[in-house]
């Protein structure tokens, strides 16, 4: 059982505030991912939880106890670093057993725990090697093994996969998800890669410039981003965001007129939106379709063919660029006219303050 609670946590340096008041509850056995662009403070926040950075203000609670002034080791957390941070002068077995050795655990018990971790991570053949003799993926597994043997309350991961190549990263992602199942542990994971966040998290925390932009499940963030930043950051390929104007608003939704002849009624709460309000119109590439009866006219300029699907970069008549996700078998030719239709229920409207207008009907997977 382990829960982590952040209460208005702040970190200030001499001349700026890096973390500007973060409040968050991490439930027992939850996999929480902090995601955001580089410099958003996500690693700082993780290091504050770990005890490697001092907390300037606010409270950090682990299992309900305030631990602001408790040392990193006594918080009973384990951390996996981006650079693995293995002890280069020790064997794999010694690396994994180091914490237990310091804690005065007897040799037999220590060896048993190291062997168990090595079994889980398939590191048995490498126990007597030094980290320098291992590949990147193996080193990463040793770093994870080092955290497992301590049986910590919470696992902390600081961009653990960003030094691995793409193939290995995909594989380790699955291994980590399986490990989370297997260990039934609370995990907090930091990444700048929204694909990692989407695929692994129970709960995603989107950070920007030291502020939480949104907290929610991956699909909640995907279908109901709270603001323009989250909408643009989550989801790959990126959401199309265009300046637009409200032409009417009633209980059926908000009518929008945008560049390139975009005209659509989006089923969202009008709130304070009135005819004439300048807004941002958002539509994901997968919610645009190539349709001979579509209302938008344009020309496909670039086709990114990924095999299973194709991303078309379509230029509308006035030069506005839209990315459209189509089927891999899509036969659209470049530089020839193409018509698009918009799936209005999936569109987003962001008011002048950048906040999203609430959808009239929420996505069933996010209720």
């Amino acid at each position, binding site marked *: 059982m382990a829960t982590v609670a952040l209460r208005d946590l702040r970190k200030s340096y001499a001349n700026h505030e890096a973390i500007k008041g973060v409040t968050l509850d991490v439930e027992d056995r939850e996999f929480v991912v902090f995601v955001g662009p580089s410099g958003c403070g996500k690693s700082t926040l993780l290091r504050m939880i770990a005890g490697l950075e001092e907390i300037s203000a606010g409270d950090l609670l682990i299992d309900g106890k305030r631990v602001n002034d408790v040392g990193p*080791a*006594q918080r009973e957390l384990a951390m996996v*670093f981006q*650079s693995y*941070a293995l*002890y280069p002068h020790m064997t794999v077995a010694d690396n994994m057993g180091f914490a237990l050795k*310091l804690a005065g655990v007897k040799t037999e018990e220590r060896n048993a725990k190291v062997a168990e971790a090595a079994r889980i991570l398939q590191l048995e053949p490498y126990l007597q090697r030094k980290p320098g003799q291992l590949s990147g993926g193996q080193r990463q597994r040793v770093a994870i093994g080092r955290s497992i043997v301590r049986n910590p309350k919470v696992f902390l991961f600081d961009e653990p996969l960003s030094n691995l190549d793409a193939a290995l990263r995909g594989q380790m992602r699955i291994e980590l998800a399986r490990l989370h199942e297997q260990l039934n542990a609370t995990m907090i994971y930091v990444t700048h890669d929204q694909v990692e966040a989407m695929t692994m998290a129970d709960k995603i925390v989107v950070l920007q410039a030291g502020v939480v932009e949104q907290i929610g499940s991956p699909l909640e963030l995907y279908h109901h981003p709270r603001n323009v930043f989250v909408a643009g950051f989550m989801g790959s390929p990126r959401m199309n965001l265009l300046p637009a104007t409200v032409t009417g608003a009633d209980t059926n939704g908000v009518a929008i007129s945008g560049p390139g002849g975009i005209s659509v009624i989006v089923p969202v709460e009008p709130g304070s939106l009135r005819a004439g309000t300048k807004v941002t119109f958002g539509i994901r590439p997968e919610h645009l379709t190539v349709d001979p009866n579509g209302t938008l006219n344009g020309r496909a300029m670039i086709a990114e063919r990924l095999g299973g699907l194709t991303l078309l970069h379509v230029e509308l008549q006035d030069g506005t660029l839209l990315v459209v996700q189509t089927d891999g078998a899509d036969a659209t030719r470049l530089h020839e006219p193409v018509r698009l239709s918009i799936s209005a229920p999936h569109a987003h409207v962001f008011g002048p303050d950048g906040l999203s207008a609430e959808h009239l009907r929420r996505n069933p997977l996010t209720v």
Partner: protein
Amino acid sequence: MRPSIAKKIAIALLGWGIAIVMFFPIFWMFITGFKSEVDAVSTPPHLFFHPTLQSYAEVQSRANYWLFAMNSVIISVGGTVLALLLAIPAAYVMAFFPTHRTRGTLLWMLSTKMLPPVGVLIPIYLILRATGLLDTRTGLVLIYMLMNLPIVVWMLFTFFKEVPREILEAGRMDGAGRMGELRHVLMPLSLPGIASTGLLSLILCWNEAFWSLNLTSSRAAPLTAFIASFSSPEGLFFAKLSAASTLAVAPILIFGWLSQRQLVRGLTFGAVK
């Protein structure tokens, strides 16, 4: 681009030339030690002479070499060990927990090396006299420790800087504590650096003459004082002076020769990484 043959030869000649020029005085001292006093001062110098151990015998009969050598060993090792003991924690804190004053402190420490030692001779002499440390090994150990501390801290600081911060943080997460981090993680990782720093300090202590000549007379005098006792104002007895000098520098030369690989490796550690 590969250097041409002529260029290679020129570089080789230059290298050998510089090496010979630098080595010649030591070679000449070594040779002179085996000459008779007459041969030693003859001009032009005799290229061929009857080697004799007479000077060595006389040096031995006039002064107890082993007493001086023992003092040198104790003072050099003592000063070095003490300097390392103080400098390792200092450099650790400066490298991993820097404040806005760290750079300034380092520069200030180094700036003390820019002062001529004679500038503080009188106060140091008076302090040692007042504390009863004149002509004691303890006194010289303390002075040598202070003398080398800035260099030792600087060198260790640069070596420690090379150790990735995250490895120490991993140690902290594993429950090592400050001392554990230092002992189990930082020191094993920077052992080549610590070793070469120690070697350099040892050599500097061994060769130091100013303080040892001024602060010792008989009981604590190291080998530098041993050499000095054979120099005479009139410039006589070159053979005996050379024999004494050879005896005094031989241990550190052999030591330097044996540890040169370690020394070079440590000194270029940061540069080649």
